[in-house]
């Protein structure tokens, strides 16, 4: 049987701001058979989305297909005119974007956008298209299939939008659908429903697919074949089972090893020395006008109590909107808590950072998720690290210079980067600077708010290793906030599960790894495993899902 897609020696060029042309795809060959689902996997910048988009003859602004051929059902997309390409787009090949929330036009009703493809390509009358859309909504198990189309994009949830985007891609009965990280922006419990819906629809109609992702476990559930990419080149191509069982390429093995459970060793501080470092008692924090009872209108954190011993780490885990970041911000005093007590090392902390002493500020540091936005883009790395040294320790001149070198050494940054600005560093390097900035204060406790979420798997694993090493050397404690269970398990002695502003359970993995609370169970069971049959075998209690998943 002839291949549906044949990519031969594909090259894509990008133009940099300075006008230089660089090759970002360096000669790729790829075949996709009819009905086959092929996954493109790799870290950010590996060119996976760029390759997927060339199948539609499309290159993002600033990019250009500079060589090779992309044959889709006998037509070379590279050679076609723009008008001829438009005839293929949406009709034979369609696209499910990474963030459906951004890819739906905010000013138009959903149904009009879903059936727009049939209008552009004059496939069927609008009434018929609407009926077909509703049947697709039903197949993708969307709630209220008859009415949901009449809403505007901001009126439905992220998980629903992602499925609506799939309906939009499927309405023209395409031969191939490109999924561009379609579940990356979703919570794990929501992701399951969306993945299942995708898989069922694709299987049933025998549509071929290209699934772009950085997450091997997700890809394992849905793909027949996996293409591993790095730096615009194919590293390895093999069937899903083959890749998981017997990866040949070192980079693939590196990706796989990020999934191996790395249990946290027993903490180094002897039990005798253990005394509470941070205690949080009945903390309430939130946003909006203050109500007569002295509490804010929207309570993002409701009566959270935690305790952390010196030298141990606490993980806080939960899905978007559960209040975990708000909790971190009120512990750090950025968002003053409305009620409750905070005690650091036996002394009470004022709710607002402004009222805390400089010594207290020094002892408790926070590292944010986005190093891009928390590092001043106009300052050099040297200045960024020098500032806390001067502020907390009054260091000047040579002493400060030496200390900056030491700090950069600690976080494994080459000294050559000293005079660079954050924009000139990679994502992982920026996060190291961000972390070194907190270390400069010589704190006792560092609150890490999703610090690995914006990083690629391999880079994130390296950052976690760094954190562990720093802990051994400097006897720090971390509060580690994340939505990613595997990351938290790798570094924390204690895990707190949050849902809807409340702490629902506290787990000590060293004693028992099995959660008791129904929500924790649901959350833990929703994390994809590398096993390709995991999704099909996973059974979830429908009642539980109804209670806790806003999909």
């Amino acid at each position: 049987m002839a291949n549906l897609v044949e990519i031969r020696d594909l090259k894509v060029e990008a133009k940099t701001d300075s006008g230089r042309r660089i090759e970002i795809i360096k000669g790729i060959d790829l075949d996709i058979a009819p009905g086959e689902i092929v996954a493109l996997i790799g870290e950010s910048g590996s060119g996976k989305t760029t390759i997927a988009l060339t199948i539609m003859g499309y290159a993002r602004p600033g990019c250009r297909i500079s060589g090779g051929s992309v044959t889709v059902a006998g037509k070379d997309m590279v050679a076609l005119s723009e008008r001829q390409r438009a005839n293929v787009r949406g009709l034979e090949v369609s696209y499910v974007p990474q963030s459906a929330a951004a890819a739906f036009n905010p000013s138009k009703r959903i149904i009009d956008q879903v059936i727009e493809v049939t209008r552009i390509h004059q496939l069927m009358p609008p009434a018929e298209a609407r009926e077909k859309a509703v049947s697709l909504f039903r197949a993708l198990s969307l709630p209220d299939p008859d009415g949901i189309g009449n809403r505007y994009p901001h009126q439905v949830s992220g998980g629903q939008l992602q499925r609506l985007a799939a309906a939009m891609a499927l309405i023209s009965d395409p031969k191939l659908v490109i999924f561009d990280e379609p579940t990356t922006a979703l919570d794990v419990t929501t992701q399951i429903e969306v993945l299942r819906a995708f898989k069922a629809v694709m299987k049933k109609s025998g549509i071929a697919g290209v699934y772009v992702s950085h997450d091997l476990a997700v890809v394992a559930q849905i793909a027949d074949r996996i293409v591993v990419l790095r730096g615009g080149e194919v590293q390895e191509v093999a069937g899903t089972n083959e890749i998981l069982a017997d990866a040949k390429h070192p980079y693939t093995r590196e990706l796989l090893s990020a999934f191996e459970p790395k249990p946290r060793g027993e903490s180094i501080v002897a039990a005798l020395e253990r005394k509470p470092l941070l205690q949080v008692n009945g903390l309430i924090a939130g946003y909006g006008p203050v109500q007569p009872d002295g509490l804010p209108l929207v309570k993002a954190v409701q009566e959270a109590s935690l305790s952390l011993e010196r030298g141990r780490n606490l993980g806080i885990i939960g899905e978007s909107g559960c209040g975990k970041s708000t909790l971190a911000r009120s512990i750090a005093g950025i968002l003053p808590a409305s009620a409750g007590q905070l005690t650091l090392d036996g002394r009470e902390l004022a709710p607002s950072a402004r009222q805390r002493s400089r010594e207290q500020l020094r002892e408790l540091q926070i590292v944010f998720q986005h190093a891009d936005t928390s590092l001043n883009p106009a300052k050099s790395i040297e200045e960024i690290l020098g500032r806390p040294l001067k502020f907390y320790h009054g260091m000047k001149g040579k002493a400060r210079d030496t200390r900056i070198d030491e700090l950069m050494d600690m976080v494994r940054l080459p000294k050559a980067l000293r005079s660079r600005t954050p924009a000139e560093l990679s994502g992982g390097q920026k996060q190291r600077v961000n972390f070194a900035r907190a270390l400069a204060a010589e704190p006792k406790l560092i609150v890490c708010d999703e610090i690995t979420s914006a990083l690629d798997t391999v880079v994130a694993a390296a950052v976690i290793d760094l954190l562990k090493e720093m802990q051994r050397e400097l006897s720090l404690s971390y509060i580690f906030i994340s939505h990613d269970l595997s990351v938290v398990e790798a570094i924390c002695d204690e895990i707190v599960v949050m849902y809807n502003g409340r702490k629902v359970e506290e787990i000590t993995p060293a004693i028992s790894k099995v959660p008791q609370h129904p929500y924790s169970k649901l959350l833990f069971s929703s994390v994809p495993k590398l096993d390709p049959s995991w999704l099909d075998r996973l059974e979830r209690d429908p009642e539980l899902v109804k209670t806790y998943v806003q999909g």
Partner: protein
Amino acid sequence: MRNYVLGLITNRLGSAALTLLIVSFAVFFATAMLPGDTATILLGQAATPEAVAGLRAAMHLDEPAFFRFARWLFGLLQGDLGTSYVNNVPVAELIGARFVNTMRLAGIVTLFAVPLSLTLGITAAMFRGSVYDRIVTVLTIGVISVPEFMIATSAVLLFSVYLKWLPALSFASDVTSFWQVLKIYAMPVITLTFVVSAQMIRMTRAAVIDTINTPYVEAAILKGASRRRAVLVHALPNAVGPIANAIALSLSYLVGGVIIVETIFNYPGIAKLMVDGVSTRDLPLIQSCAIIFCIGYLALITFADIVAILANPRVR
């Protein structure tokens, strides 16, 4: 939801009214601070101190400024703009015909400039980076950089002096045919269209390009939509807010800022009236003109804001 929108709009109208009050306050006291005493100036050099005092009392000039302000504001609310100091004619009468002239000119310019700017701005955005886009950009920047009196005098030089096609002055009194109306308005309209369009074209282009760069326009292109459809159906509706504001800002210029054009073409509009008022120290006239300009400006901006509110489905 509907109530929420009504609330937003009422809010907007309320803040416009408040702005107007503050501006009227500022206008009144700024003009009151002009140097010189009106009564002395009116009576001329032969004025006796008694006559000056009598006139001041008759004009309420001896009252505290705040009372005069209250009296003036109260009159304004009843539609009484006061009486001209210079020729004792009600200000409303002085302004009336001139105001109609200004509005007529502004209206005609709007009819030409808005469709022209929207078309050029949107098409330039649609074909961004093309030769067409570059020509439009160079021309608009060129026009922005040339002062309007330069355009106006060049137009007079070309069309009236050399070609003798159009009259140099725009007296609107001896009009007998439609053809004459066209001839009279041609040059002021061309000049003002040049002046207000350039800004609108730039802003429209920028607003549309902003929305073209969004993922939902990319998604539309990947659905097979033509560039035309992607821009007109997907990008444009989301750019309505900023475009409406750009148009309002540019057009507000037509209400009061056309003094140079009115002077060069000797067009009897309200801006020229106000400048004449300043030279004769005719306070009620100056104040009324300033308030009218302010109302015009606020009306346009408020209208643009309401359009932007209504165009956003998130609040609708």
